[in-house]
């Protein structure tokens, strides 16, 4: 296990170091060339930024509305939040625009993205020139302790997307209904056998559902290293066989006998609240506390992580190649990285999305913003979250989803 992690690190280190150099060097340049950023600000004034992102959460939507109001007042940039079901729809639309030869004045200026969607856009040339190094606040990002802020599912971001927030899988259960939840992937199977119908996961390709597959795969596979290389360099069948064996055993004991799956991540919370299931999971360690405060979960819900760690990643914002308000999009992306915006985002009463900033790069006043944040009743202290498991290479996402659909989607 430990050796495996070292191997991961050894593989990661060069890329991480390189990106850190680029990042730090780049932001030094940005600071030195304050005039250049001023030019961006001047250009951005009066622009309207169409920010496309998943709109399934009220708290996220409210937060975006707040940020939009702030940049309107401060920089004269109007942000329109285009709420979508799945950011893949937006990737599709930008592709349609490229199909029609629209290389400027595209319909999307900034989009909330990560993982395989980012990889697909990068590969198909749907993202423009790198912009992240030009954002003054990028210098504050914790690129060292959080390498996922510059390497997205093993794909280097190359300055094409700016980190926005951190995510890590946590499991949740209602202490009033369940005494002791299983704390490992294999324990989960044993528990489900004893008490069938009380667990499920969102149907891949929902990203939370796919994350469950990855979580199980990382733990169960005999060749963890292969997951961090492109999938076509691995023996997919051999590497993933333990996962399918596991799911074959698990599915009959799932909610509704594994014949029906929730279609989106947040439905797990609803099912937990409805007492249809006993264990749910989410990508945001603060989600359970926020849901309790919001009246969506009972106060007796608590969270935990699995022994051996859970999957963690970073989510980003990116500017498409044909954005109409590129300067405005950069100003908004930079504001989202500001200590003020990041601290508000991390507030569990607002959204509760962990920050990407490095505390030691902030001023004492800025640090105080974060220190003052309350911790919700169901939120684990940061040290209890443990070291997150890295996402497999972006190419595994599609492969796992396709194989899942082929096996269970018919």
């Amino acid at each position, binding site marked *: 296990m430990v050796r495996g992690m070292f191997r991961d690190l050894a593989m990661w280190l060069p890329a991480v170091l390189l990106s850190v150099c680029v990042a730090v060097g780049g932001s030094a340049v940005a600071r030195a060339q304050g005039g250049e950023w001023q030019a961006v600000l001047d250009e951005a004034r009066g622009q309207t930024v*169409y920010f*496309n992102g998943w*709109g*399934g959460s*009220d708290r996220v*939507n*409210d937060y975006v*509305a707040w940020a939009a109001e702030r940049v309107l007042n401060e920089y004269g940039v109007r942000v329109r939040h*285009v*709420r*979508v*079901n799945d950011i*893949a*729809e*937006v*990737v*599709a*639309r930008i*592709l*349609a*625009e*490229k*199909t*029609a*030869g*629209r290389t400027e*004045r595209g*319909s*999307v200026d900034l989009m909330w993205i990560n993982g*395989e969607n980012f990889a*697909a856009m990068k590969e*198909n040339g749907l993202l423009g020139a790198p912009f992240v190094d030009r954002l003054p606040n990028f210098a504050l990002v914790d690129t060292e302790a959080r390498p996922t802020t510059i390497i997205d599912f093993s794909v280097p971001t190359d300055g094409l997307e700016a980190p926005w927030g951190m995510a890590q899988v946590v499991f949740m259960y209602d202490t009033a*209904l369940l005494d002791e939840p299983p704390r490992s992937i294999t324990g989960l199977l044993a528990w489900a056998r004893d008490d069938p*119908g009380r667990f499920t996961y969102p*149907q891949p*390709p929902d990203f939370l559902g796919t994350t469950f597959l990855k979580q199980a795969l990382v733990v169960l596979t005999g060749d963890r290293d292969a997951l961090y290389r492109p999938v076509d360099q691995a023996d997919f069948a051999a590497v993933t066989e333990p996962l399918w064996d596991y799911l074959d055993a698990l599915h009959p004991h799932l909610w*509704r*006998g594994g*014949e*029906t*799956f929730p*279609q*989106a*991540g*947040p*439905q797990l*919370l*609803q099912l937990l*609240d*409805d*007492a*249809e299931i006993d264990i749910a999971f989410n990508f945001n360690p603060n989600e359970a506390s926020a849901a309790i405060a*919001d*009246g*969506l979960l009972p106060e007796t819900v608590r969270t935990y992580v699995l022994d051996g760690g859970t999957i963690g990643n970073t989510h980003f914002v990116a500017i498409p190649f044909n954005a109409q308000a590129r300067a405005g999009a950069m100003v908004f992306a930079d504001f989202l990285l500001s200590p003020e915006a990041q601290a508000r985002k991390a507030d569990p009463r607002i959204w509760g999305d962990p920050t990407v900033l490095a505390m030691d790069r902030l001023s004492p006043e800025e640090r105080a913003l974060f220190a003052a944040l309350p911790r919700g009743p169901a939120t684990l202290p940061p040290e209890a979250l443990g070291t997150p498991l890295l996402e497999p290479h972006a190419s595994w996402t*599609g492969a796992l989803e396709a194989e899942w*659909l*082929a096996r269970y*989607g*018919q």
Partner: protein
Amino acid sequence: MAGPLRAIAGRRPRLRRGPWMGFVPWLTLFLFLVPVLLGLVGTWLPAFGYLPALGGTGLSPEPWQRLFADPSLPGALLLTVTTGFLSALLALVLAMSVLAAWHGTRLLRAVRRFLAPLLAVPHAALALGLAFLLADSGWLVRLAFAAGELMGLAVPRRPPMLGLANDPNGIALTFGLALKETPFLLLMSLAALGQIRVERTLAVARSAGYGPVTAWVKTVLPQLYPQIRLPVYAVLAYSLSVVDMALILGPSTPPTLAVLVLRWFNDPDLSLRFMAAAGATLQLCIVLAALALWYGAERLVVRCCRPWLSAGGRGGPGRATRGVSGLAIGLAGAMFAAAILAMAVWSVTRRWRFPDALPAQWSAATWAETLPVLAWPAWTTLWAGLAAAGLALVLTIGCLEYEDRAGVRPSTRALWLLYVPLLVPQIAFLFGAQVLLVLLRLDGTAPALIWSHLMFVLPYVFLALSDPWRALDSRYARTARCLGLSPGAVLLRVKLPMLLRPLLIAAAIGFAVSVAQYLPTIFAGAGRLTTLTVEAVGLAGGGDRRVIGMYAFAQSVLPLAAFALALAVPTMLYRRRKGMSP
């Protein structure tokens, strides 16, 4: 093409009175058919491998090979065909049995009064409400638990495992579709019955000793069915290719073909686009084949029933049919109402946990907090609906007025053209239409959104208005002409005021159709323009029923308000003119 075009444009055009009018039917057809045709071509090209942006420059059968190799396809096809046929059949049987068993009764008059509001409720809102009713921890189970507790029974802490919603066989979807389509068929049938001498026919049959239901089935139904054949086909085509209801109520492993195709269109792996285009084309083929099959079944039924029709069996008093159909329509109405009520209740809930029969804490917070966010899509819904309904009304009036002046009647073939956007599955041409819009730089603009809605609004407005228009006694117009009014003045000062009520009802129907559009809004709105329906379907995955409830409720309220206005305005305007109110 020329034949049917001439049919709607008139066979013997006498253009002396307003030659410009001849332009209107052509314009109407252009608005309708050209986009559909271009959209189909724009979908067929990638289906055969041509999509230069993704490196597809030549024609190849590969997308089809990939499509037929997809493991989800067989299950999806089976599901699509079974849910589509069964729901259309169920809706037809329900509508016909109610008409057969309850014609001329108070029940039918009550049903008629509720038809408009039932039609006004968008598919997505009904589906969201039904999903909550039918869930294992849904309202029906909660009410049953509460009832059990009242009777002193021991109620379990966990919900039962019923598995009604999203069942793998699509029964919930079939049921939901039938529930939504029955009012439409009833409305179209009631309109058609106005053109048949029902009472006289029935009187003759009854005097010959036929039972009430048998008399209706043997003498009225054979006259009625040809008149509602097109609406029935529209229902069948819609049920086979519906997306929003299938997303909310249908199964997902696999889903129906239309949902599967949309999934491929939206997949981050862009190479799936080719397969998606092939799937969309397959969807079109399935609908066409289904229509042909249905037509064949009609022939078969006619042939098999002919001996029965003339065999002279008088049938009994039909109490069983009456009981069953009355019960079914009552249950359906109750489910419909409960679904919408559930959404309304959720929107003012703070905490409503299983197994409480009603919310434990009520709150207006969802409305207070979400209203500002909801205002923008609500505003888009409003102007898009008003513009589409208004344009459709103007075009329809133009076509009908041209009919009057040129002295022609459109043939059945022309009516078929009108139905094209309703018979061709939306997913089969909307992708191509989207590329067209992007080429014209119109995607995400108001004209694009209004036009995409207009395609679907226009047929309904035309259907709703043409009968009352043609039924207007032509002697009024002739008298006005004799008194020296110009044709334009006759239209403005005689016909339109007299037809105010049907005009407004047609506009309200058009508005409701626009509000309910899901796929066209997604494709033409380009994410920049979003309506309550799109938001509500999007939130279905969001897990907060309070917000879902609010959107679903708001989405139902707008068309209901339109219908209320359509009924109230003529009554107010004509308060002092009794003769004007029918």
